[in-house]
């Protein structure tokens, strides 16, 4: 069902297209769909002329993106779609050897042959132990909700819990998702660009990078800059985030946390400023903490107790008779001495002086002090603003962090430290402050459906109406590991580097090796270049007996390790329901409207490419799983329809049996074998009414409606609190330690403390006289994942950009080391990992650092444009518990290196392509 060709009217010129001469034009059609350049999924219109896609424009009428503009990645999608190197047919590996540079020697097979073989293996595994299936992948840019709706559902119904996604924080961060989930019921955070006056970024490229919500962030942050918003960017490099800052502050990787803590210290203890009302009403600041570091609880109800300063006695936190919450003082309750957690926090942060922060981070103490002062001045505690007739607190400051700031072994604490800056001035989900991606949706006005409301859960803490990957609150209990990811050990982890680690076998052995992974199904991913340490990854993937991948283009993982490759659809030829996993993932913030862009094919899929969801359903039929999957979809869609039947996280799928079937709307009948577009049509009609099915979007663009003020800025409209004292970590510690022992796992237990603290990251511990520089990578606006280097337009401009394909160093440091622009250099880690590239010196870079943008350095022979371009940074990283945050398991994404000249690109030795 591809949009019919629209012929231009007779003798009328084609509009919005440069045409030379008078060629015959029989098709001049614009199609509403979503971009697949990154996982921002901006609403676009694709221009098709004479059956060929010629242009990508942002949808000028949609808030879900740049409103008419698009970034280069989106435009270049066209070339990926028409790349002659694409996978067009199912392929089978005939070379039994697997490895980094192995030639798969593909043999073309039929779909039936491919699916028969896969189904046969899956049946056997399911009968023996479904956990033997590992499924997942890194966030494929075009995948969108196919991730949970397709693979997530398939795996859960199949019965495996080995769901391996997200590159274990290499691309985003477990700390970010844990923290944003906990504090904002959201996947990440961004300044309220419309009203913010002072934004502080720590290792974040919001508005200048890529990823979810990139489109509207670009647009809104440009408006903010134009308006004069101050933007202080802490970053080791002055390129993207730093390049648009009003003040760039160089900082050593992994030390953002101590700068944040020092600022909190200055604000609370030197300036003595904080938003008392926010702390009393919206945090666990008043909750009483006993000598064991945990809440003092009411004996009858088990609810945490607070001290009512008016009545002078302890009461449960949500007792309606409370006159005034004490946030200071020493009290005796239930026979123990206890303190409000805010009191403890305020005392605790005194140890973080600006001088100490300077020593660790190299940010001058005077700068830390000055920015702390500017922060409170700009925060306007007590101010209000009126928006559409509603009076709201106005706190026009926002501190945000994404991958870079928390991509270290102190991930959880670094992120929480930064969140404290927002919490203590009340700048959370109020105008001008730090906003999560939308957590509060009342639903489409006519139907009341597509609803998601955050609410108070255990201990009065905020939890999301819907989420994914992990439930931000309440956290699960710790368990002895039984999946190969093992993250059930530490429920504060959202992603895990295991089992693709150098120490996994040690722990799995200790656990008695309950089973082995026999089959891996990986979609839209590059599990050997996009993840940490290809040497460690190679050891792991080589051992998996059978690997199936769904891909559009050849990559290093398919070539080196896949047994069967299935040709996926490019976003430009595919259906996909919504550009989102949920509004909390990438919907426009603040008063930007509600908007539901939907993906549909601009051209008919060519060759034998198939929609991966329909392929999974085909497999499900062969395994007798279709009915269960249909039931899951019904529950999933219904739960957005009014009742949060399920949390949206993968785990909740496994509790389908607990759900009252009367509450589930049967959009799909149990044994129906529908197509993806049929499912989309029914879901759209269910959410938005019968007149708003797929046909509607095809002709009119996305369903839209205005956002209400209390949806955009929900914080003071919902009675929820956030933990500025991480009591749950104190609760968790004992059991985690006990369970860890069963697996022989030793974590840095010091970090299991409820008071946000600074811990030197592993990278900082590995600095030495020999390995004296910190190397790191960062998002480049031109690239996403590892496939964008294959697009000729992006490759062309990357070659013109001074930094994208080069390794950068501070000019003075390079000179000190006898290096100059154009030198071929090698970066070597203390573990002997090596990567090479061309040096480009910069003024805008911290002298103790070496930087590589994106993750280039492709070696797949099937992707000739990308081959050899740029540098693969991930080679330098380690993958084990030592290099992961113990609390949230985010990876250490920086590595110490020594730098020297080299005569050739050593990491390509044996790759088999052109000599580099």
């Amino acid at each position, binding site marked *: 069902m591809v949009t019919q060709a629209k012929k231009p009217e007779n003798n009328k010129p084609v509009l919005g297209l440069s045409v030379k001469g008078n060629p015959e034009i029989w098709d001049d059609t614009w199609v509403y769909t979503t971009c697949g350049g990154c996982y921002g999924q901006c609403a676009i219109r694709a221009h098709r002329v004479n059956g060929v896609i010629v242009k990508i424009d942002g949808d000028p009428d949609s808030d879900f993106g740049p409103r008419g503009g698009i970034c*280069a990645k989106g435009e270049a999608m066209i070339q990926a779609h028409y790349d002659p190197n694409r996978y067009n047919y199912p392929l089978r590996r005939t070379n039994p050897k697997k490895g980094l540079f192995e030639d798969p020697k593909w043999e073309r097979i039929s779909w039936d042959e491919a699916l028969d073989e896969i189904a046969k293996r899956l049946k056997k595994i399911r009968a023996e132990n479904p956990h033997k299936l590992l499924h997942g992948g890194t966030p494929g840019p075009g995948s969108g909700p196919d991730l949970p709706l397709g693979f997530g559902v398939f795996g859960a119904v199949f019965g495996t819990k080995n769901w391996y996604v997200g590159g274990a924080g290499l691309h985003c961060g477990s700390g970010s998702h844990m923290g944003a989930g906990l504090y904002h019921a959201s996947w990440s955070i961004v300044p309220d660009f419309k009203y913010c006056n002072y934004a502080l970024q720590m290792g974040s490229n919001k508005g200048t990078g890529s990823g979810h919500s990139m489109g509207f962030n*670009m647009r809104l942050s*440009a408006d903010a800059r134009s308006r004069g918003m101050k933007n202080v960017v802490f970053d080791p490099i002055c390129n993207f985030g730093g390049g648009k800052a009003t003040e760039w502050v160089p900082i050593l990787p992994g030390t953002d946390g101590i700068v944040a803590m020092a600022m909190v210290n200055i604000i609370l203890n030197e300036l003595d400023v904080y938003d008392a009302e926010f702390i009393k009403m919206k945090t666990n600041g008043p909750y009483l903490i006993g000598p064991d570091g945990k809440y003092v609880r009411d004996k009858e109800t088990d609810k945490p107790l607070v001290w009512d300063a008016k009545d002078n006695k302890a009461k449960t936190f949500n007792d309606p008779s409370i006159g005034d919450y004490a946030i200071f003082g020493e009290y005796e309750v239930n026979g123990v001495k206890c303190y409000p957690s805010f009191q403890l926090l305020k005392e605790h942060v005194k140890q973080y002086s600006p001088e100490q922060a300077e020593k660790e981070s190299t940010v001058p103490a005077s700068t830390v002090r000055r920015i702390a002062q500017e922060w409170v001045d700009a925060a306007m505690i007590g101010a209000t603003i009126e928006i559409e007739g509603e009076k709201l607190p106005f706190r026009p400051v926002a501190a945000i962090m994404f991958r870079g700031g928390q991509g270290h072994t102190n991930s959880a604490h670094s992120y929480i430290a930064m969140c404290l800056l927002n919490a203590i001035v009340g700048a959370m989900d109020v105008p001008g402050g730090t906003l999560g991606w939308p957590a509060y949706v009342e639903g489409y006005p006519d139907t009341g459906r597509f609803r998601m409301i955050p609410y108070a859960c255990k201990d009065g803490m905020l939890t999301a109406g819907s989420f994914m990957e992990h439930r931000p609150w309440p956290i699960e209990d710790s368990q002895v590991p039984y999946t190969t990811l093992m993250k059930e050990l530490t429920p504060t982890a959202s992603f895990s580097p295991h089992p693709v680690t150098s120490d996994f076998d040690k722990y799995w052995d200790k656990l008695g090796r309950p089973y082995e992974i026999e089959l891996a199904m990986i979609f839209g991913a590059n599990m050997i270049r996009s993840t940490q340490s290809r040497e460690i990854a190679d050891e792991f993937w080589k051992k998996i007996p059978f690997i199936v991948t769904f891909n559009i283009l050849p990559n290093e993982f398919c070539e080196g390790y896949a047994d069967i490759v299935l040709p996926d659809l490019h976003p430009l030829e595919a259906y996909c329901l919504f550009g989102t996993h949920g509004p909390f993932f990438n919907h426009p913030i603040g008063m930007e409207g509600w908007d539901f862009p939907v993906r549909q094919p601009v051209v008919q899929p060519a060759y034998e490419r198939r929609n991966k969801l329909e392929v999974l359903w085909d497999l499900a039929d062969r395994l007798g799983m279709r009915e269960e999957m249909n039931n899951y979809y019904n529950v999933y869609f219904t739960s957005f329809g009014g009742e949060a039947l399920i949390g949206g996280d993968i785990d909740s799928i496994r509790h389908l049996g607990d759900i009252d079937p009367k509450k589930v709307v049967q959009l799909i009948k149990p044994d129906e074998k529908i197509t993806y577009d049929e499912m989309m049509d029914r879901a759209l009609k269910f959410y938005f009414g019968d007149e708003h099915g797929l046909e509607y979007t095809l002709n009119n663009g996305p369903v839209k409606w205005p956002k209400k003020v209390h949806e955009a800025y929900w914080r003071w409209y919902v009675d929820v609190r956030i933990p500025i004292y991480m009591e749950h970590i104190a609760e968790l510690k004992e059991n985690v330690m006990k369970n860890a022992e069963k697996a022989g796992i030793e974590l840095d237990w010091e970090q299991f403390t409820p008071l946000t603290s600074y811990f030197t990251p592993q990278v900082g511990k590995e600095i030495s006289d020999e390995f004296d520089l910190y190397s790191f990578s960062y998002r480049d606006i031109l690239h996403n994942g590892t496939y964008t280097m294959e697009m000729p337009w992006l490759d062309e401009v990357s070659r013109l950009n*001074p930094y994208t394909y080069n390794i950068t160093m501070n000019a003075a440091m390079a000179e000190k080391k006898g290096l100059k622009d154009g030198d071929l250099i090698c970066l070597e880690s203390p573990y002997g990992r090596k990567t090479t590239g061309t040096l480009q010196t910069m*003024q805008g870079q911290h002298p103790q650092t070496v930087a590589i943008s994106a993750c280039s350095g492709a070696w797949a022979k099937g992707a000739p444009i990308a081959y050899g371009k740029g540098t693969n940074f991930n080679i330098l990283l380690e993958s084990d518990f030592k290099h992961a945050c113990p609390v949230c398991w985010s990876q250490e994404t920086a590595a110490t290196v020594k730098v020297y000249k080299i005569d050739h690109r050593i990491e390509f030795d044996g790759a088999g392509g052109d000599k580099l």
Partner: protein
Amino acid sequence: MRWGMAIELKRCIGCYECVLACKAEHFLPPDIFWNRVLIGESGKYPTVTKLIYNVRCNHCADPPCVKVCPTGATQQREDGIVWVDEDKCVGCRYCMIACPYQMRSMYEDDSKEYFPGQGLTEHEKVGRELYPHKPGVVQKCVFCKERIDSGMAAGLTPGVDREATPACVTSCPTKAIHFGDLDDPNSEINRVIKEKHGHPFHPEFGTDPSIYYID
């Protein structure tokens, strides 16, 4: 009427979409760019500013390239757009030397493919039908004159209506580029230039460029 641009440097994030929108719009061959993004730095560590400049032919009011062209291929329209008639151009490149901004490109080899050795893609083939490029001639930004002409014929306003506005302008995700009539004192572009102190690059070249930059 004199078409011009004003580019707000604060808004620009260096995403290169202006470059690629133009490449897509005109099916430009490999290694040919009609506009570019120049990246640089100003200052010394730690006080550094990143510089991002999107540059293209300035469609100067006093263009030296027109003066030097021996065949009259390079010419200027009434509305100020400077363009090259590829049927008249003999590829002498005098204009390339004359242009002080170095904004012209010589297109030589029409056998170059975007995927070398793998033939022309469907996309490249349709490009050769819709917007063919003659090899051996000089080419450059034409302010999307075809869009402007067809748009105006349909009653649309360049700089206001998307279909009549240059592709780089409409494709910019931060709306950094304004397009309009510099001769109209009431135009939006003149307002922006006045209010935000727009200035052309290298005014000392004396060519009276039509592209202004706003710091």
